[in-house]
């Protein structure tokens, strides 16, 4: 209605103007005009009218186009993918597009005259306040990020871009961009990076992620420790570390253009089979095993996990082991030397004493006096024992680890041991029986010695009945349990451990001869084989010697 009234007034004004113009066109009133003059005026008026009509038509046209254009821009404004808001001097919304209304979850009409702060997360209020101040102060474009709270209470992250309206220094136009997706992607990336970091740090060796351009993207602490720098070309870094073995250095010198060789970052399947790599970044020289490259993510073929295993400790242990082995070898040589000296140099004078005492005894027995015969007897006895001791000690010292264990048929060894003792067994009227025995990986000499000493022991310490010895073996979990049982005098509880000590004797020489080394030899052999030896016995009824030998398969 109002619009119509305005239009009416406009058209009345227009009429007045037109009549005024007509008066200026003719100097006298219309009724005083001649026919010719009237014609001219009428013609003139008609032309004007047409002219006016044409102008009018053009105006209408322009008006229409303007209208179209306005609608078009309004649409663009309203349906823009980002929200637009305009704030008045008091910071109240006085214009908003449909997107903004949608973003805020409210009808557009309800937005007008409302403060924008009502839609901002309470923790982010200051951000927006500062942002507005900055824009008002500098009149230039500013950006911030904050959380928008919709009418329904849901939230989203928004980027806010604001500037003052042209010609209105205190009015602000703001674009609201929903950056939830971007934020999510960033969070996901951060999480992935965090995960990468965790995984890399879980690798107990210097490890890093590099891309095909050999830029270090991530590295664990051990890698950083040896001089790796994030974001840099790995070759530069490794140049500092001197990560190359001599062989690799030569290769890189021979192929100066081949960075693949130079930085020994060969990709994936082509991992360098280098020997040990050393880093000079550390005062201590580190040894590294070959360097590995492998796809970090089977889908993302741009990222490689690059790592080398630090084998410094292993190398040190190897060095130590080698020197210990050397020492051991020297000490073994010493021992052999000692054994030789004992066998030769120690026995030589003893043999002379023995031989001439024998001569003395043979030629002068009964020719001196009774005492002299007795003394000669003591000397002979003493030298005999000394010889036996030296021999036993030698045997004991020669029991050593077999250089190459061979399959040993224990049955054969036992038969040999029995054969060695035939004289003794027959003299005592003894009998040795055995069950089938296994074949084991070991030193055959040791096994024979073991049986011989144990059987000898059983025969020697026989009781009133003729000695009976039985040998058997059975397999338990991962070892063989041997038993040698006898019907001898047995061993009393307190002595069960002592008997395996060297030169330990439980009886006087007049009761039982011997040096007390036999069981010590057995214990040494079993110790070397990694087994155990013990005795179960009931005094007067007999003893059972047990020993175990680990069942080492070839």
């Amino acid at each position, binding site marked *: 209605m109002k619009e119509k009234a305005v239009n009416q007034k406009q058209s009345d004004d227009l009429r007045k103007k037109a009549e005024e113009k007509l008066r200026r066109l003719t100097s006298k009133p219309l009724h005083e005009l001649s026919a010719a003059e009237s014609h001219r005026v009428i013609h003139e008026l008609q032309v004007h009218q047409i002219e006016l009509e044409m102008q009018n038509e053009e105006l209408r046209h322009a008006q229409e186009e303007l209208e179209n254009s306005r609608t078009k821009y309004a649409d663009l404004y309203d349906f823009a993918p980002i929200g637009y808001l305009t704030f008045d001097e008091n910071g109240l919304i006085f214009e908003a597009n449909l997107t903004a209304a949608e973003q805020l979850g409210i009808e557009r009409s309800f937005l007008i005259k409302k403060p924008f702060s009502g839609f901002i997360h309470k923790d982010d209020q200051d951000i927006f306040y500062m942002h507005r101040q900055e824009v008002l102060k500098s009149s230039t474009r500013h950006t911030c990020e904050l959380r928008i709270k919709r009418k329904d209470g849901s939230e989203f992250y928004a980027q806010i871009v604001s500037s003052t309206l042209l010609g209105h220094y205190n009015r602000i136009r703001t674009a609201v961009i929903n950056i939830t997706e971007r934020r999510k992607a960033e969070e996901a990336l951060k999480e992935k990076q965090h995960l990468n970091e965790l995984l890399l740090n879980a690798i107990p060796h210097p490890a890093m992620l590099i891309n095909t351009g050999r830029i270090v993207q991530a590295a664990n602490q051990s890698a950083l420790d040896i001089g790796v720098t994030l974001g840099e070309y790995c070759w530069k870094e490794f140049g500092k570390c001197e990560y190359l073995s001599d062989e690799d250095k030569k290769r890189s010198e021979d192929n100066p253009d081949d960075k693949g060789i130079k930085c020994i970052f060969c990709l994936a399947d082509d991992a360098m089979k280098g020997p040990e790599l050393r880093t000079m970044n550390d005062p201590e020289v580190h040894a590294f095993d070959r360097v590995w490259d492998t796809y970090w993510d089977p889908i993302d073929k741009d990222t490689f996990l690059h790592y080398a295993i630090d084998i410094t400790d292993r190398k040190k242990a190897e060095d130590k082991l080698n020197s210990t082995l050397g020492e051991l070898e020297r000490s073994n040589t010493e021992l052999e030397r000692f*054994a*030789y000296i004992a*066998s*030769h140099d120690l*026995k*030589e004078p*003893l*043999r*002379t004493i*023995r*031989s*001439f005492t*024998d*001569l003395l005894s*043979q030629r002068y027995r009964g020719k001196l006096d009774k005492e002299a015969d007795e003394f000669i007897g003591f000397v002979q006895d003493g030298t005999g024992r000394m*010889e036996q001791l030296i021999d036993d000690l030698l045997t004991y010292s020669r029991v050593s680890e077999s250089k190459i264990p061979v399959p040993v048929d224990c049955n054969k060894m036992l038969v040999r041991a029995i054969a060695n003792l035939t004289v003794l067994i027959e003299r005592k009227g003894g009998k040795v029986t055995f069950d089938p025995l296994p074949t084991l990986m070991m030193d055959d000499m040791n096994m024979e010695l073991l049986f011989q000493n144990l059987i000898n022991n059983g025969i020697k310490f026989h009781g009133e009945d003729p000695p009976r010895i039985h040998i058997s073996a059975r397999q338990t979990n991962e070892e063989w349990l041997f038993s040698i049982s006898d019907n001898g005098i047995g061993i009393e509880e307190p002595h069960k451990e002592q008997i395996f000590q060297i030169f330990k004797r439980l009886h006087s020489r007049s009761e039982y001869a011997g040096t007390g080394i036999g069981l010590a030899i057995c214990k040494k052999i079993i110790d070397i084989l990694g087994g155990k030896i013990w005795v179960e016995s009931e005094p007067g009824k007999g003893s059972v010697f047990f020993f175990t030998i680990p069942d080492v398969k070839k």
Partner: protein
Amino acid sequence: MSVPTSRGNFGNASVRALQPSREILLVEDSPADVRLMKEVIRECDLDCNLHVVEDGSKAIDFLQRIDRFESVPRPDMILLDLNMPKEDGYDVLDAIRSSRDLSSIPVIVLSSSSSKIDIRSAYQLNANCYITKPAGLSDFVKVMNSIGDFWFNTVKLPPL
């Protein structure tokens, strides 16, 4: 230094009667062992002339009849100790085996050592046998008897 020893008259007197006494060279540095060997030979029925030298270089001189050994006989057998000052038993053995004239003489190594290394080395240098000196007198007599029995009665020695 030639000590003719001949004793005992048991069993094979008729065999021995057909053969001249054997010449044995004993290479031994220990006077006690030399004496013992003489006594042992006395104890057993070995018909031989025992010549003794106390070290390796003298043994070589003896075998090559140098200087004072100009008129010694060529031994039928050598009893060789290994452990001696100056040239030891190995050197003597090596010299004997390298000489065309001497290489055929049987050499019996008689040592107090029972070390595997010594035994192996002696055989590698072509000793005819290796005997560890027995500890007791009776064992020693037994050994010398079996040496005599084997080398003088059983086997044929290389002709001169």
